[in-house]
């Protein structure tokens, strides 16, 4: 049971990341892979500030700002220097590795017996369940904020930017600035996932972000298949499905491990799972014909 509870908790930790990827890939139509760097950045900033006994009221905004800056940098490189978004993301992620190492001063930072977000409140006796409840509230608040944002005039303009750039420019929106803001928002969310997971795992590590973009992509793709399947247009349902996607994705991984698959093969299994989900529509139409 505990095994699946921690999968659920991990899924919730990754839901901010999934929302971030949803914003960059689905809303802005920009394949942003700054994710690997900004996720670690969020984790590293959290770890260092926690060990320096900073107040949670400082850590949370610091993480959001750090992630936002990373995303804005990618956005600036992409829009102002007209560099391909993938390359812009790779460059920022690559340099963030050095930034993260410099901030931490070493490659691994244990946070054992350091008070965290999850020990702030004691709602239930079991620490994992306590984490689950705090996390749920946290994720619900974030989802609500993003959902509200997408409903506002600014949010509609954001959604239109990734959809029809010529139209939204003719309607008076500076699309460059909009993309930079969007990537900043996406990576601030990604950094929040780093913030959550570090406090859940109890350590920050320089390589924690390697390939994490796949986790976000996988979650969004699972959500997207459901969105297309049921032809969903409501912003709230879509966001809920993205959260659901993040949780389902972690459950699949946990289940794979429970089946006794070698942990070394986990990344390959993850990749295969993502491939399967992406190709499902094509495979089913092949079968039909």
């Amino acid at each position, binding site marked *: 049971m505990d095994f699946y509870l921690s999968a659920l908790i991990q899924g919730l930790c990754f839901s901010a990341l999934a929302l971030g990827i949803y914003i960059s890939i689905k809303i802005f139509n920009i394949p942003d892979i700054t994710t690997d760097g900004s996720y670690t950045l969020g984790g590293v900033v959290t770890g260092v500030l926690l060990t320096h006994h900073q107040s949670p009221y400082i850590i949370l905004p610091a993480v959001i700002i750090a992630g936002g800056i990373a995303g804005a940098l990618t956005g600036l490189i992409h829009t102002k220097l007209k560099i391909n978004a993938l390359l812009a993301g790779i460059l920022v992620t690559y340099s963030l590795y050095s930034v993260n190492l410099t901030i931490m001063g070493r490659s691994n930072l244990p946070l054992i017996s350091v008070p965290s977000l999850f020990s702030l409140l004691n709602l239930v006796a079991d620490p994992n369940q306590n984490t689950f409840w705090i996390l749920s509230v946290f994720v619900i608040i974030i989802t609500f904020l993003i959902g509200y944002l997408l409903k*506002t*005039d600014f949010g509609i303009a954001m*959604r239109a930017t990734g959809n*029809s750039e010529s139209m939204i420019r*003719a*309607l*008076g929106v500076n699309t460059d600035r909009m993309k930079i803001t969007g990537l900043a928002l996406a990576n601030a969310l990604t950094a929040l996932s780093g913030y959550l997971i570090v406090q859940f795992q109890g350590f920050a590590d320089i390589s924690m972000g390697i390939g994490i973009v796949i986790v976000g992509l996988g979650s969004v793709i699972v959500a997207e298949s459901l969105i297309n399947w049921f032809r969903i*247009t409501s912003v709230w349902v879509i966001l809920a499905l993205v959260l659901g996607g993040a949780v389902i994705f972690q459950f699949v991984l946990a289940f794979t491990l429970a089946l006794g698959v070698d942990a070394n093969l986990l990344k390959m299994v993850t990749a295969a799972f993502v491939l399967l989900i992406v190709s499902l529509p094509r495979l089913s139409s092949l079968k039909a014909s």
Partner: protein
Amino acid sequence: MIAINDVHKGFNKGKANQVNAVNGITLSIPESEFLVIVGSNGSGKTTLLNLVAGSVFPDAGSISIDNNDVSKLADYKRSQWIARVFQNPMSGTASDLNILDNFRLASIRTKTKGLSIGINDKFKQQVREKIETLGMGLENKIEQPMGTLSGGQRQALTLLMSVMDSCKVLLLDEPTAALDPRSAEVVMRTADKLITDFKLTAILITHNLKDAYNYGTRIIQMSEGLVLRDLNNKQKSDLKQNDLFDWFS
């Protein structure tokens, strides 16, 4: 309203494939004039329209709108005066957003897109009433994504969207090129009605000589980046449709 003063625009300067699209055009378009531009492919019509819209900037010369020099003003800033309808119906609307969201953005074209929710029952009612005037039966589909509509429906809605907010200049770049004859007629009639009702200054680029003959208060023919013919309202009404065909032979 629009003053174009000795404007030049070329592409790929200094390379083998250099193109001088606009070669020193001077044109004054007074308020509420409906200017029709005809000309063969490559005559510089679209470049001229893009220069007015701000999608490209002139190499030399100046452009002013409503007595403001806009020669170097970005397109999204010129939207305070200008609304556009593109040749491709996909370009003028956002397919994944529903009709309502598209209209909401259009209704705040000249304003900041802020952090408040602007779509309420009053706004929905307003959009429904606007759309009803098209007579396409779209007023009950305002929650439908734009992408589910036909090209003609999208162009007609794009036209309506242009007058959701204060609008002085309407730029129409071959708005009916991708449409079937019946939809094309609806779109052109809607455009003409809006231009008259709202006293808009309009520029229409078209390859359809029948439309060029039927609509507008002035017509120019462009060739090799220059104005070849320029006929005012009186001269245009004296023109016969066959004369127009002769321009191209």
